[in-house]
Each structure stands twice: as structure tokens, then as C-alpha cells.
């Protein structure tokens, strides 16, 4: 059985992976970007009464979406780092608290968390809408980020901390100067993905009457009945933002991985 024509597969036999250095390649990213920008310019020019009016209606919504995203990501990074460290802690109680937090948050849908913080807890604490959105999003994403941080830190060979400790570094210094700078390279790509996912998930906060991109679009559509035009523009605006963001993140990744280049 083992001997009947086993075909050897060479690495070179598969489909050629696009070489990231090859500038001549037309990438999917460029096609998407040019298409999006092209449509965002062409549609309003062609039909200023519908597409054009949507575009002029939503800019303050874009600002709100950015505000919610940036605040949430900043807070989620802090929560994520603490959770990741907590999950690796040798202290039983810290470990338990961090693990419990991850289990609970991962088990409740984000939409439910949003409702919970805004309407359920709203009976006791009067949290303003944007703050409720930021708390819910960072609370949710903090748990996911915690897992990313944990995996990143664990990916660094134990010999590194042993070496650092033997040089007289204490635990915190080892983490701060030896482990985290290296782990960051493993952590950044998944954190970047979480970042983009979070930006897209901010559209959920429109349910709390936060005037983000989606809410502004829905307000316009409910008055004008131009549903097709409105949601086309909304989708294109989100796409443009995430395309630019993903490019920035992949550039950062490349810079951080310059050690690995040969």
C-alpha cells in the first residue's frame, strides 16, 4: 500500500504565490480600491439627487464611527494585554479572573452585550450612548485580544525568558524588554484583523441610536425611500475605510517583520 505510486510533490509544483515584492502585479486590493473610489465618485456625479445626497448626509456619521472605533480599540488593547498576561499568570486568582472574563464575554453575542450595557445597566447607571458603545465593544474585543496576546507571548521560546532571568532581569522587565517586543510581531497581524472586525462591528451600535454611518444612512433612506442608493453608498464607504486600514496594517506588519527577511 505504502509503495504503490507515491507521487512526490515538490514545493515548486503548486500554484505560484504572488511575490509581495513584485510591483508589476495587479493585486485584488488595488482593483477593489480603485473600483470603490471610482464608484464613490461616479455614482454621485451621475445622480446627485440620490447618491449625492446620501454622501452629503453621512459625514458626521463617519466621524462618530471613527470615534467609537478608536476609543474602543485603545481600551480593548489595554484590556487585552492585561487579560493575556492574567491568563499566563502563575497567581491562581488572577488567572481565574482573567479566564472567567474571557469565557463569559466570548459566550455572549456583542449585540446582546450592547443592549445589556445600554438598556439593562442603564436603569442603574446613566451611561451616555457613545460611552456605552465603547464599553461594550472594548469589553467584547478585549477578551478576543487577550487570547491573541496570550498566544503571542507563548510563541516566544521559553529559553528567552530563562536567559533574561539569568541575566538578572525580574519578571516584569523580562516581559517588558525581552518577550513583548518579540511577541508583538506575532501579535500584530491578528490584532490588525480584530481592529478591522471591530470597525465593522461598530455598525451594530446604530441600534443604540448612536448616529454612526449606518444610522445616518438609515435616517436618510427612511425619509427618501432611496434604499438601494443609500445602502450602496454605505457599503462603499465602509469598504473604502477597511481597505485603507488593511493596507496600513499590512505595511506595519512588513516593517515589523524585517528581521525575518533573508
Amino acid at each position, binding site marked *: 500500500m505504502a509503495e504503490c505510486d507515491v507521487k512526490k510533490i515538490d514545493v515548486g509544483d503548486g500554484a505560484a504565490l504572488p511575490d509581495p515584492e513584485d510591483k508589476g502585479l495587479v493585486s485584488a486590493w488595488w482593483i477593489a480600491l480603485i473600483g470603490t473610489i471610482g464608484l464613490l465618485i461616479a455614482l454621485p456625479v451621475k445622480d446627485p439627487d440620490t447618491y449625492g445626497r446620501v454622501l452629503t448626509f453621512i459625514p458626521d456619521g463617519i466621524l462618530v464611527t471613527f470615534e467609537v472605533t478608536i476609543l474602543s480599540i485603545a481600551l480593548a488593547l489595554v484590556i487585552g494585554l492585561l487579560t493575556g498576561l492574567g491568563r499566563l499568570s502563575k497567581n491562581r486568582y488572577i488567572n481565574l479572573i482573567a479566564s472567567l472574563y474571557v469565557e463569559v464575554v466570548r459566550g455572549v453575542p456583542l449585540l446582546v452585550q450592547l443592549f445589556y450595557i445600554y438598556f439593562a445597566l*442603564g436603569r442603574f447607571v446613566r451611561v451616555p450612548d457613545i460611552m456605552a458603545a465603547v464599553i461594550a465593544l472594548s469589553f467584547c474585543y478585549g477578551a478576543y485580544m487577550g487570547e491573541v496576546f496570550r498566544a503571542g507571548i507563548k510563541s516566544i521560546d521559553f529559553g528567552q525568558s530563562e536567559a533574561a532571568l539569568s541575566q538578572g532581569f525580574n519578571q516584569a522587565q523580562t516581559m517588558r524588554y525581552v518577550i513583548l517586543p518579540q511577541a508583538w510581531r506575532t501579535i500584530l497581524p491578528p490584532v490588525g484583523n480584530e481592529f478591522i472586525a471591530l470597525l465593522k462591528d461598530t455598525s451594530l451600535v446604530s441600534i443604540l441610536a448612536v448616529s454612526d454611518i449606518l444610522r445616518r444612512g438609515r435616517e436618510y433612506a427612511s425619509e427618501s425611500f432611496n*434604499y438601494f442608493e443609500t445602502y450602496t453608498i454605505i457599503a462603499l464607504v465602509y469598504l473604502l475605510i477597511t481597505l485603507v486600514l488593511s493596507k496600513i496594517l499590512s505595511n506595519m506588519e512588513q516593517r515589523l517583520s524585517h528581521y525575518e527577511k533573508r
Partner: protein
Amino acid sequence: MLKKAVLTLVTLAVMCGSAWAEKTIIFATDATWPPMEFVDAHKNIVGYSIDFLTAAGKEVGFKPVFKNTAWDGIFAGLAAGKYDSITSSVSITEERQKKMDFSEPYFVVQQALIVQKDSKAMGLADLKGKKVGGQIGTTGYFAIKAAEGVEPKSYDEIGLAMEDLNVGRIAAVVCDDPVAANYALIKYKDTLKIASVIKSDKPEYYGFPVQKGNKEILDLINKGIEAVKAKGIDQELKKKWIGQ
């Protein structure tokens, strides 16, 4: 092939069905608008307009079927032909009449301003710089947007706006007066009150919209409205659901 067979069968079934049964009219309703249309404790869609249409159907021979639909997008569904009409306290406005045909009016409505019990605001003019909430795409929300200086805030459901007013995150809510009365006098009677009724140059009426040009359904609904009004059933229903 199978698709074709199934289609034929369905078409046959529909044709046979309409041959001897009375006409079924599917109405979409956003059942979050008590006492006009809402979901009761037994998960049934009930309310003034539900009873109104059921009575109308009995009078002129159609069977209304109610389909719970989110308000935001309810008109898009009508345009796409997902249902025949809407019974969701739809006020007849010029903007809406451009996109769909309306039945005769079946209810007069005014916009009411609801505030917290201890608030001194009497109208939208007293609420400059404050947040005022309404349901997205309703005439109440349009009234807020038209008022100068207030910050409009749109909610998916009026109940969420009322809850936000109840906990004090917004200063007031504007909606149809029967709904306002339901929330301010029953559900939140300890915390909210109706401050005033917003004056308007034109009276506002509810109607049942249909797709532009759908004369068959429209005529049937209009006949039903006429019969219900002629028999005074609408007055009984007002007593039952609104109490006036």
C-alpha cells in the same frame, strides 16, 4: 424540472384557493406601536388597526393576514411586493404618496411631546440644545428634525426612545398621541407625562398604503373602511383600545 412542477402546483393551489375562499390580503405591521398595533402577552399581534382590518374584512369579504415587520424598511418591502399593504399607523404624507397609493384615512392623529414628570418644557421650542428622540422614519421624528435648535435622535423602536427618556438620557420624545398616551399614562405613568400636542397646519391621518397602481386591493380596503365607519365599529374600537 422539479422547480417547474412545484411552481405549477403552487400556482394551481393559489388559483383554486382564491376561487372559493375569500381574498387574503397580507398586511405588514411593525407591532411595537401600542395601542394601535403591538404584540400581547400571548405573542399575538393585536391593537386598534388589527381589529379595524379584521372587522373590515368581515364586512366586505377579505381575510387580513398580519406579518410582523421591522419599521425601518417596511416601505421597501411593500415596493418589493413582499406584502400587499401595511397597517402600521402609517400617516399619509406627501412624500409617501409619491411612492405609494394610500387608502382613505382611517384615523386622525396628532404628534405629542412626552417629557419627564418634573420637566417644565411645554413644547419643542423649550428644548433647544437638548436631545429629543423619535422612531426613525416617522412623522414624529420628522417634526423633531424640523424644529430649530433641538438635537434629533432616531431609534429603531419607540419603546427604546421611551426607555431612554425614562432613564434621562434624552429630554423628550415625540410620537403619535395614542402611543404617547399609552406610554405616559400606563407603562411609565410614574416617571413620564405628555407635555403638549404639537400644532400642525394640516391634520394628520393614518392610511393603508399599497403599491402604486394596485387598484384591486386598494378598492377592497376602501370598501372595508367605509363599511366599518358606516356601522360605527370604529367608535367601539376607539373605546376599547384608546378609551375616548
